[in-house]
């Protein structure tokens, strides 16, 4: 008899009680756990801006489905979809999404809305981004003058866009003293940039939602490469038996419905004097880019 099993033997009455409790706990928990709810994995921008607080309750009311919104970066959301841990995704990294669909993990991918990314920074603007022609030159100016820049560093859609601009410049800023990676959502990253008087790239919606507590100013905007396009899609229910199909279809349809699109068009007007997103149901990505 090994020392371990001997020890278990000695402890048996206590262990039995412990195990019974744990088993009881699991049983009780599984009784109240709901396996029929829809898991929506989405980017932090749709969540932090408050848009989903308006849309999700309406969807729940209309359909009776229960939605669990998990706000992570786009990279993580796609990863949750790959594992079958989410049913429907609302994300904003078109290239990664196309690959996700091609690999057979995503189906029914639909364009929902867009807004744009902006480059923000301290009002003093030491890198003089107000006078650069495009996003690439903006990042080059930050790099040349070694101005503090806060990156999301979390494989989110915003992070992917930022990295694609660095890649176009043929430069890897990782590890530089002026290049900080927050590893957090857009709201937290904006606040870090604000406190450090640093530059960062953000989606317009989160920036406007946090404007009250930020001293950062918009220093560069309007570059076509800074378009921020959101798609909704189902995780392929045929890849995993865990994935909900029916409620996911209903959610995709809901996001494209006239009612949801009208809410998207209006969202933010009352509070910020301008809409945070532009509804795009029925359009293609090329249509949006042409405008």
């Amino acid at each position, binding site marked *: 008899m090994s020392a371990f099993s001997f020890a278990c033997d000695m402890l048996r009455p206590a262990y039995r009680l412990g195990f019974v409790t744990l088993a009881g*706990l699991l049983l009780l928990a599984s009784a109240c756990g709901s396996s029929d709810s829809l898991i929506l994995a989405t980017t932090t921008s749709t969540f932090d801006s408050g848009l989903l607080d308006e849309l999700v309750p309406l969807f729940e009311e209309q359909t009776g489905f229960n939605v669990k919104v998990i706000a992570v970066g786009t990279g993580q959301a796609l990863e949750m979809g790959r594992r079958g841990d989410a049913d429907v995704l609302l994300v904003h990294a078109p290239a990664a999404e196309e690959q996700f669909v091609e690999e057979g993990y995503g189906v029914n991918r639909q364009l929902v809305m867009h807004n744009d990314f902006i480059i923000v920074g301290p009002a003093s603007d030491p890198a003089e981004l107000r006078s650069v022609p495009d996003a690439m030159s903006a990042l080059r100016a930050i790099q040349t003058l070694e101005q503090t820049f806060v990156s999301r560093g979390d494989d989110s859609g915003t992070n992917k866009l930022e990295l694609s601009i660095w890649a176009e410049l043929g430069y890897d800023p990782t590890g530089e003293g002026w290049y900080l990676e927050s590893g957090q959502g857009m709201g937290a990253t904006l606040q870090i940039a604000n406190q450090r008087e640093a530059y960062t790239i953000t989606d317009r919606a989160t920036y406007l939602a946090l404007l009250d507590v930020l001293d950062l100013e918009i220093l560069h905007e309007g570059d076509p490469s800074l378009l921020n396009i959101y798609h909704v899609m189902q995780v392929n229910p045929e890849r995993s038996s865990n994935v909900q199909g029916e409620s996911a279809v209903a959610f995709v349809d809901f996001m494209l419905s006239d009612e949801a699109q009208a809410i998207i068009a209006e969202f933010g007007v009352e509070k910020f004097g301008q809409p945070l997103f532009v509804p795009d149901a029925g359009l293609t990505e090329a249509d949006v880019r042409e405008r």
Partner: protein
Amino acid sequence: MDLVWDGVREAFRILGTGDRDVWEITLRSLLVSGSATIFSLIIGISIGASLAFRRFPGRNLAVTLVNTGMGLPPVVVGLVVALLLWRSGPLGPLGLIYTPAAMVIAQTLIAAPLVTGFTVAALGSLPAGLRPQLYALGASRLQMLWLVLQEARLPLLAAVMAGFGAAVSEVGASLMVGGNLAGETRVLTTAVVLSAQKGEFAPAIALSIILLLLIFLVNLVLTTVQQRERQS
């Protein structure tokens, strides 16, 4: 400084007007962490009693493991519980991920080693002759355990406070296994994180004050019981 004062003023306004969301979140914190404390007491006291009374090979190792567990990082517990409960994980079919039940499980695992450690210490401080005496008087094993726990109830209250304190104030595990869902798994700590991230400092301050008050009240009640018992 304006931010701080506005925050505090707004916090007291929220506390005064009894914002429904805030009270709901507070109640949920109390329920989730309260049940986790009860489960951790059952597990912790049974294992702690075994460790305190029985002599077996590997006992020192077991006590060391419990002491290590007292400093168990909540995020590690959160990650392990999440890996188990994710739909793709071994316990996925139970459908527990992102439910209050998942948070109760994680917080139980965080609090149980604390309760176990305090139990070992509390029972270890009893006079060595007590147990043989009780057996000599004809007590059964369960009666003995009950009487001994009665005898050690004052130091055991410290185990309750430590367990509840750890459960209600942890945030990493609750975020990971609960998902911070409004109206379902949002508790005081995760709500503070979210409010601060959104730049809404007033609710963050209000929720923090409530969290502190909650821990204070629970400890006040338990300490009062402890002191009164001691005097009588």
